């Protein structure tokens, strides 16, 4: 118990916010692993008030103002109740009686801690240097909420089908299985508003907690599958941009996470240009040792680059992470080889996971690049035969620029394009032309791209009456060197 108060006094006297936050953290520091236990057993419900008063108000090494001491008094009162619940839950967990661990009441008691801390700030009693306390209360509120919801879901499953059906009664009232987490989102949002609305000068402003809290909210909203709510956060950040410090002035951890989430949001909105910029920043500034974070960033950066720059990840990059390798390697190989059959198979095999990660609809467009590669192969294969046509400058390889549609059809069939069959063993040339037309026309869904250098995959035109595709003499396949 003493170590806690020593830390508290040191933190208060040196204005060390992070140290201060450890005193109300549900995780005991490594130096003092039994801290919560000692705190909980060091006093009891009857002498708690006296003990706290003694520690906070009459402590000779502390010089807290009366209001401040009272606010901390509230915080530690709530914290005391919380430690009781947490220790009981953890004990049940370690004694392999996980069902008896009452995470829901752990959540509720931690929410009380959050409220006490919140009141400290809303009453302008706590100074801005203490904001790591806000990080701690927000962070663990989310964690306990998830645990409580998981437990509620598990106990519902245990209690059998009949009961589950009764629960479904509320399907109309949208009773959710994430009750606590939704509540947590509301609480964290309160903190966000608390920081956003601070009017003190920047040196002493809660605005420095803005991005951490925003990230926490993103995390929660993503888990709740209510991503559109994240846009509200972005909007309010943008609206108050003029009197908020630059993002670059924040700790790098806050920056990277924030860029990652806003990058993913842009990605989901099909704003691939911004997504590329934001995710690239996140990738480059991310701590190299944080392999999981890098993997998360790449999960969205790879499909983005595929669309914006038609660039596929290198083998080395994919091999840095088994997950990325498993997810993307088959697709990338198929695209490089222009193997439509393999591409479809890979897309189907990974569909569930791609959908879960929300990249399916983007990866699907890799097919356009694949077809471009296929047409390019047809073009290159034909170049020798037609060498005589070219008048030829020095070093210029003669290329046959007129390709019969039936040759392209044959190539498509070899690649495994089943959809071009007309159902009677022949080829539906109209469909082949349609695929070619799409390659010539810029990718129909890339209309939002602004920075994309080359929007069309192929230059040329279809002369339908003659049944040929006429390709541009120079740079028929932009960006591929042909």
């Amino acid at each position, binding site marked *: 118990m003493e170590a806690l108060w020593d830390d508290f006094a040191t933190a208060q006297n040196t204005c060390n916010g992070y140290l201060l936050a450890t005193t109300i953290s549900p995780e005991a520091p490594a130096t003092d692993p039994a801290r919560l236990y000692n705190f909980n057993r060091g006093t009891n419900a009857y002498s708690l008030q006296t003990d706290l008063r003694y520690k906070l108000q009459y402590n000779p090494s502390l010089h807290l103002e009366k209001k401040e001491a009272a606010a901390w008094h509230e915080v530690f009162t709530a914290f005391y109740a919380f430690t009781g619940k947490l220790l009981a839950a953890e004990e049940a967990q370690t004694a392999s009686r996980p069902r008896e661990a009452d995470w829901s009441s752990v959540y509720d008691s931690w929410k009380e801690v959050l409220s006490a801390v919140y009141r400290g700030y809303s009453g302008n009693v706590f100074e801005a240097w203490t904001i790591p306390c806000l990080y701690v209360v927000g962070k663990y509120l989310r964690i306990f909420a998830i645990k409580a919801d998981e437990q509620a879901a598990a106990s519902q499953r245990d209690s059998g089908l009949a009961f589950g059906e009764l629960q479904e009664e509320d*399907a109309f009232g949208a009773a959710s299985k994430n009750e606590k987490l939704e509540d947590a989102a509301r609480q964290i949002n309160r903190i966000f508003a608390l920081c956003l609305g601070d009017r003190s000068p920047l040196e002493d402003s809660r605005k420095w907690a803005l991005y951490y809290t925003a990230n926490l909210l993103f995390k929660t909203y993503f888990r709740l599958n209510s991503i559109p709510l994240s846009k509200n956060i972005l909007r309010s950040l943008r609206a108050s941009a003029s009197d908020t410090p630059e993002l670059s002035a924040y700790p790098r951890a806050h920056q990277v996470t924030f860029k990652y989430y806003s990058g993913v949001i842009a990605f989901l909105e099909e704003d691939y240009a911004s997504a590329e910029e934001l995710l690239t920043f996140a990738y480059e500034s991310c701590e190299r040792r944080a392999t999981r974070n890098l993997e998360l960033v790449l999960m969205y950066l790879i499909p983005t680059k595929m669309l914006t720059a038609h660039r596929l990840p290198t083998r080395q990059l994919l091999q840095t992470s088994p997950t990325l390798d498993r997810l993307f390697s088959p697709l990338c190989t198929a695209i490089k080889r222009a193997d439509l059959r393999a591409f479809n198979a890979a897309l189907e095999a990974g569909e569930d996971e791609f959908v879960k990660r929300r990249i399916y609809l983007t990866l*699907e467009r890799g097919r356009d690049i694949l077809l471009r590669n296929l047409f390019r192969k047809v073009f290159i294969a034909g170049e020798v035969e037609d060498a005589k046509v070219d008048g030829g400058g020095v070093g210029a390889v003669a290329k046959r620029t007129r390709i019969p549609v039936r040759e392209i059809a044959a190539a498509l069939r070899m690649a495994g394009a089943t959809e071009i069959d007309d159902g009677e063993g022949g080829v539906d040339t*109209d*469909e082949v*032309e*349609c695929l070619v037309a*799409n390659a010539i026309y810029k*990718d129909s869904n890339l209309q939002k791209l602004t920075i994309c250098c080359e929007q069309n995959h192929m230059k040329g035109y279809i002369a*339908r009456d003659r049944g040929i595709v006429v390709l541009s003499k120079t740079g028929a396949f932009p960006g591929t060197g042909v």
Partner: protein
Amino acid sequence: MQMSPSYTAVAARQTLHRPDAPPAPEPARTQKVSWTPGVRGYVQRAFDADSAMIGVDLAEMQQRLKANLIKTEREALALSNAQNAHIANLNASTSYLSSGAKIPERSIKRKNEDLETTDAEEDAITPPWKKHNTNKGSMEDRMTGKSKKQDKKQKKNDAFRANGLGTNAAVLEKRKQRFGYVSPEPSSHPSSRNDSPERTGPLVGTCQIVEKSYFRLTAPPAPDTVRPLPVLEKALNLIRNKWKNEHNYNYVCDQLKSMRQDLTVQHIQNELTVKVYESHARIALEMKDLGEYNQCQTQLRALYKMSIPGRSEEFTAYRILYTVYTCNRTDMNNLLADLTLGDKQKPAVQHALQVRSALASGNYHKFFRLYLDAPFMGAYLLDMVVERERIAAMASICKAYKPDVTLRFIAQELAFFGDVDAPEPDAGLPQCLEFLCQHGGEPFVERKEDGDIRFHTGKAIAVFEGQRAAAFRSVDIKGQI
């Protein structure tokens, strides 16, 4: 004494005592007590030399034992009394159940159960186990959260009984007669519950009129304005026929909305509910009333999730097509995530998925083939997409084909067939021409000497490119009329 098997275990405990209590079934017994072997063993062990405790002499031990035995006996007696009463009650309640079980509605049954409970309470003794005699009964109580109150009261009764004031039924009975048959709860409890204005449970309607127009509720409805299940079934058939014969959407929509309301206030969620919502969704779709259509789809999704049978294949397909229309990628992703392997194998869902994938890759050729081949009422949804996709396809065609293409080719590619049921090669040409002219393509149409109509694609790029951007920008998400 007839016992149901679930109580045999408890009955065994009755052998623990055949006490000296005066009004016991065999009143001839005097102070002579016949202890069971278990009890005898217990006493013997207590006096055994091995278990002798220091500081506890024989006299004290005797005293303690006596006290213990008397206490146990009392408790056992109280138990058995309550049990006898309970068994009597059980007979009553089972006879009720056999008559009440005919009514299939959960809510109706619940109501009857209420009435029954009050009867039992007038008999004064309602043991706490009563509620558990059938699974259904206890579940309903859990659902309404009502039994807590009763349980509490019963507990009070038990405590009262166990207090020793009336350790046996006969004494209680005497007391009761002295007071002129007063129930232990002197409050006007049954009536207060019936009259209670804030009843939270579902109500059961009594209205027998089949047609009823929709009125938005602002207060709990009176039962006589709500149609019960059988009447609603009749109503659905009536409305369906009226729709077939008269095709008056305002009337039908109004009627269906009132049916939906009646179902909601009575908490009816069964196949009829699904049918009502499905019918309304289809009719709304036909009339392009997307607001109602969406409301129905939301409910249907919840109902299918409760695995109430219905046409989930059809409506899943609609949902995909609708999301294609709104171009909402988040929704689409969620929708794909929700699809099960079984869903994906259903033909209509497959068709919808193919439509999605064709449009995602800009394959207009395939899309328009699928458009002509839509199962169920998918064509109504695709109608909303088709104009916009035609413009998009024109933009592609204009960019890719040079110098010109025949009008027939465009008509074919964009699925202008005149009459879909009897396709003729040139029947769609006027339609196609009209479409092109509407979108500013008129200057690029040329009739050749041989009668062939050609379209100068190369020159029309700019026109269709502009139209395309505009067409995709204006998607009204809510789709309200």
